[in-house]
C-alpha cells in the first residue's frame, strides 16, 4: 500500500466520522488520481460500516402474551426481556459480547473476605428517565423486590445466597453472601433484575416503567407491542443509536417472515428453519446464527430404576446418534452436545472425554456390564419442552434399537408439561436456556439441593467441588475444579445433552452491529442499544 492510498484511507475515516465533508474527500481523492465513481463507492462502503444516529427500528418477536407485566420478576421470555429490560433498563452488571461480566449501573465491583462480601459502586452521574439520579438506595430496593417473603419473582431463588443487602452511603452497595461466590457479579446481570427507582414507602416503583436504559417507554400494550423513544441522557458512550424502537409480538413465524420481507419490520427472531435457505436468498436481508448457551436435553431420574445404575445411564448416552438428529430434525442448526451442560463459549468450559457419540457396541457392552441383555423404558416428551422434542425422540428410538434398547416414546400434552411431566416422570425431554457461568448452571440444575435438580443426581465429590470453586480466586485452580466437575457430570450424571441450539435470526441489510452476544437471543437481548442503521 503506497503513501497516497494510506493518506486517502485516513481521509476516508475522517470523512465518514463527519470530520471531513464528503466534498472535501472527493476533491482529495480526485487529486490523488482516483476516478469520481471510485471515490463515491469508497465513501459509500466506508460509511456503511459506521454507526449512524437516527431511524426507527421495528423488531418482530415470536413471544409476547396479554398477561405480560411490567414487574421484572415475572418477565417470561424474549419479548419482555428484550423490550422491557434490554431496551428500557439496565442491571447492575452486563455480559458483553465475549461473555465477560462488565459494570453497567455499577461502575465497579470488588470482592472481599474470600468473595463472601461484594462491594458495588454505583456509576456517577447516572439518572433515571425522569432525571432523578440513581442512588444505592434504588439498587437495594430493586433487588429487595425479588427477595420479599411473598415474592413471585423468578429471580427469588437466584438471590437466596444473599444474607445482607445494604446501602453504604449514596453510591455504595454491600452484599454479604452465605458462602464465597467469585461469580456473583454475573448473577446480578440477569434480565429479571433491572435497577428501578425507589418509592417513598421503601418499595420499588416497577409500575411506571421509569428505568435507566437507552430508551424510555412510550407505550406498552401487553401481547401486542411496546414502543420506546431515545433517552438523550444515556450513560453509555456509543450506545443507543436509534430515535425510536418498536417491538411487535408476531407469534406466527410465517407472518413474522412476511413482515420482514415486506419491510414492515427490520429484525425478526426465531426464523423458520425449513425456509431458511429461501430467506437467505433475499437480497435485502441477512440471516445471523449464534450458538448460545441454550441446550435441548433428555433427563433421567437417577434414583429410579433402571437409571440408578451408572452403566445403564452410559449405555443410554451412547445409544443416540446426535449428528443424525441435528441434521434431520434441526437441519444442522446447532452444535452436538456431549452430556456437558456448559456451552463451549462459556469460560472454564471443557469437552469431557471420551465423547458420547453413537456407539451401539459400546452401549451393548455397558448393558452387559450392568447384567442386562436388553433394556426397555418409557420416555415422556412434548414439543413444549423444545420444538422438535417429539421428532428427535422418535428418531432416537430408531437409533437405540441397534443397541438393544427399546425406547417407548410417550407424547405428553404440551399444556401443563412443566407442571405434570417435568420433575415428575422418570425420563423426560427438557430444555435449559443456559447460564453464563459454570457455577450458575451447576447450582441451578445439578447441585444436590437445587430446586430444579431434574436428574435427582447427588454426587458428593461434585458438590464439594462446587462449593470450593465458588470461593477459589486462583483462576487456574478454579479452572481445574470446574473441569473435574464437568467430567464427573459427563461420566456419572443423568443428563443427555443432545445439542446446543442456535439462535437463528434475520435482519435488514441496512442494520449494522458489532460482535453478537451469545448469552441470549437478540444480541444478548440488548439489540436496541447495540445496533444501528448504516444507511
Amino acid at each position, binding site marked *: 500500500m503506497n503513501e497516497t492510498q494510506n493518506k486517502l484511507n485516513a481521509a476516508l475515516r475522517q470523512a465518514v466520522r463527519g470530520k471531513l465533508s464528503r466534498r472535501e474527500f472527493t476533491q482529495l481523492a480526485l487529486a490523488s488520481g482516483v476516478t469520481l465513481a471510485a471515490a463515491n463507492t469508497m465513501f459509500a462502503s466506508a460509511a456503511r460500516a459506521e454507526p449512524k444516529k437516527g431511524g426507527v427500528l421495528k423488531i418482530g418477536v415470536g413471544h409476547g402474551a*396479554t398477561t405480560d407485566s411490567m414487574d421484572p420478576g415475572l418477565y417470561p421470555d424474549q419479548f419482555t426481556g428484550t423490550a422491557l429490560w434490554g431496551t428500557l433498563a439496565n442491571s447492575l452488571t452486563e455480559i458483553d459480547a465475549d461473555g465477560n461480566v462488565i459494570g453497567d449501573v455499577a461502575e465497579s465491583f470488588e470482592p472481599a473476605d474470600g468473595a463472601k462480601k461484594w462491594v458495588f459502586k454505583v456509576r456517577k452521574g447516572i439518572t433515571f428517565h425522569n432525571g432523578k439520579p440513581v442512588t444505592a438506595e434504588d439498587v437495594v430496593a430493586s433487588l429487595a423486590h425479588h427477595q420479599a417473603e411473598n415474592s413471585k419473582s423468578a429471580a427469588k431463588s437466584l438471590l437466596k445466597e444473599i444474607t445482607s443487602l445494604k446501602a453504604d452511603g449514596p453510591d455504595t452497595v454491600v452484599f454479604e453472601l452465605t458462602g464465597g461466590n467469585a461469580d456473583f457479579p454475573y448473577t446480578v446481570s440477569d434480565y429479571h433484575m433491572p435497577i428501578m427507582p425507589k418509592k417513598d414507602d421503601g418499595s420499588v416503583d416497577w409500575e411506571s416503567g421509569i428505568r435507566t436504559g437507552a430508551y424510555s417507554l412510550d407505550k406498552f400494550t401487553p401481547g401486542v407491542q411496546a414502543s420506546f423513544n431515545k433517552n438523550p441522557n444515556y450513560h453509555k458512550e456509543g450506545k443507543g443509536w436509534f430515535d425510536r424502537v418498536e417491538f411487535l409480538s408476531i407469534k406466527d413465524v410465517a407472518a413474522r417472515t412476511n413482515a420482514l*420481507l415486506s419491510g414492515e419490520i427490520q429484525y425478526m427472531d426465531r426464523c423458520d428453519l425449513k425456509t431458511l435457505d429461501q430467506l437467505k436468498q433475499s437480497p435485502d436481508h441477512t440471516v445471523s446464527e449464534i450458538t448460545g448457551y441454550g441446550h435441548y436435553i433428555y433427563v433421567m431420574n437417577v434414583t429410579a430404576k433402571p437409571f440408578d445404575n451408572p452403566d445403564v445411564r452410559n449405555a443410554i448416552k451412547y445409544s443416540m446418534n446426535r449428528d443424525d438428529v441435528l441434521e434431520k430434525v434441526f437441519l444442522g442448526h446447532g452444535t452436538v452436545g456431549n452430556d456437558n451442560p456448559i456451552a463451549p463459549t462459556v469460560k472454564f468450559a471443557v469437552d469431557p472425554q471420551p465423547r458420547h457419540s453413537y456407539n451401539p457396541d459400546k452401549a451393548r457392552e455397558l448393558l452387559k456390564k450392568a447384567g442386562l441383555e436388553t433394556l426397555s423404558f418409557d420416555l415422556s416428551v412434548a414439543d413444549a419442552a423444545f420444538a422438535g422434542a417429539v421428532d428427535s425422540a422418535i428418531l432416537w428410538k430408531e437409533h437405540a434399537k441397534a443397541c438393544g434398547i427399546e425406547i417407548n416414546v410417550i407424547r405428553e400434552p404440551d399444556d*401443563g408439561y412443566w407442571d405434570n411431566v417435568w420433575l415428575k416422570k422418570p425420563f423426560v425431554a427438557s430444555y435449559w436456556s443456559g447460564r453464563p457461568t459454570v457455577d450458575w448452571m451447576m447450582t441451578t440444575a445439578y447441585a444436590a439441593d437445587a430446586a430444579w435438580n431434574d436428574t435427582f443426581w447427588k454426587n458428593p465429590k461434585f458438590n464439594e467441588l462446587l462449593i470450593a470453586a465458588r470461593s477459589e480466586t486462583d483462576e487456574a485452580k478454579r479452572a481445574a475444579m470446574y473441569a473435574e466437575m464437568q467430567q464427573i457430570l459427563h461420566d456419572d450424571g443423568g443428563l443427555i445433552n443432545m445439542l446446543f441450539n442456535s439462535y437463528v435470526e434475520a435482519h435488514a441489510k441496512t442494520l449494522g452491529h458489532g460482535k453478537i452476544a451469545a448469552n441470549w437471543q437478540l444480541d444478548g437481548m440488548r439489540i436496541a442499544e447495540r445496533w444501528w442503521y448504516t444507511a
Partner: protein
Amino acid sequence: MHPVLKTVLQRLGLGLLTLFVVSVVIFASLELLPGGFAEAILGQGATPETVAAFNREIGLDRPAFVRYLEWIGGVLMGDFGYSYAGLGGSIKRSVSELIAPRLYNTFFLAAMTAIVAVPLSLLLGVLAALYRNSWYDRIVNSVTLTTIATPEFFIAYLLMFFFAIKNKWFYTLSTVSGSTDLWEHMYRAALPAITLTLVIVAHMMRMTRAALINLLASPYMEMAQLKGVPRREAIIKHALPNAWAPIATVIAFNLAYLVVGVVVVEVVYVYPGIGQLMVDAVSSRDMPVVQACALIFAATYILLNLSADIVSIITNPRLLHPK
C-alpha cells in the same frame, strides 16, 4: 301480545339462561385443564413456593365454587373483575378495559367483511339459482367451493404474498391501535376482510341457491310459470320471500363466525382482535378474561340467531299468525 314481540322477550330471557350455562361450562373446562395461572405464567421456573405465593395473592387457593360464586356475583352487578395478570400489583387491569379495544377491532373487521360479503353472496346465490346449470353457475360454484375448501391461513398467506410482498399495495401486518384513524384502520384491515369474505361467501351463496332451487318445484312456482311470469320475476318475487328462513339462518351463522371464529386470521395478520385474546387467556388460565370473552361471544351468537328467527317468523305467515 304480538308474536314477534313475544318471541323477542322469550328469547332474551332464554338467552340469559344460555349465558349462565356457558359460564358454567367454561368455568368447568378451565378447572379441568391441567395447571393453573401461576404455573402457566412461571413455566419451567415455577417452584412450589412461588406458585403458592402467586395463588395466595390472586385468591386461587380457595375452592372453585367460592371463586365462581364470587365471579358471577360481580358479573350480576356489572363488574367483570380484573385479569389475574397484575392482580397483586398496584396496576390492576380490569377485564372491561382489556377487552374494549379488542372488541372494537373485532366488530370493525366483522362489519367491514359483512358489508361486502352478505350482499355479494345473496346476489351470487340468486343469479346461480336463476341461471342454474349454466356455465356461470358452474364457475361461481367451483370458485367459491375452492375458496371455502382452502384453509383460511392458506388464503391469507397467498393474499399477503401477492398484495403485500410482491406488490406492496397493502401491509402484511394489520396492527392497529386506539390512535389509528378510520381510513388507516380500514386500509390495514383490508386484507383480513378480503380473506374472510372469500371464506364465508361460498357458504351463504350456496345456501341461498339451494333454498331457492328447493322452492322452484313447489306448486306456486309452477303456477307462476304457467301464468307466464318471467323466470327472473318468479324467482325474485315468489321464491325469494319464502327462502328467507334458511338464508337468514346461514347468514346469522356466518356473521357470528366473523366475530367468534377468526382467531387464525388474527394470528396471520397480527390483528389485535378478541379471538387471540381469548386463546391467550385460555393458555394462561386467566379465568375472568376467558369468561368475559366467552360471554361476549355467546351474547353475539344469541342476538344474531334471534334476528334470524325473527326473519323466519316474519316471512312465514303460518308462524306469524298461529292458528
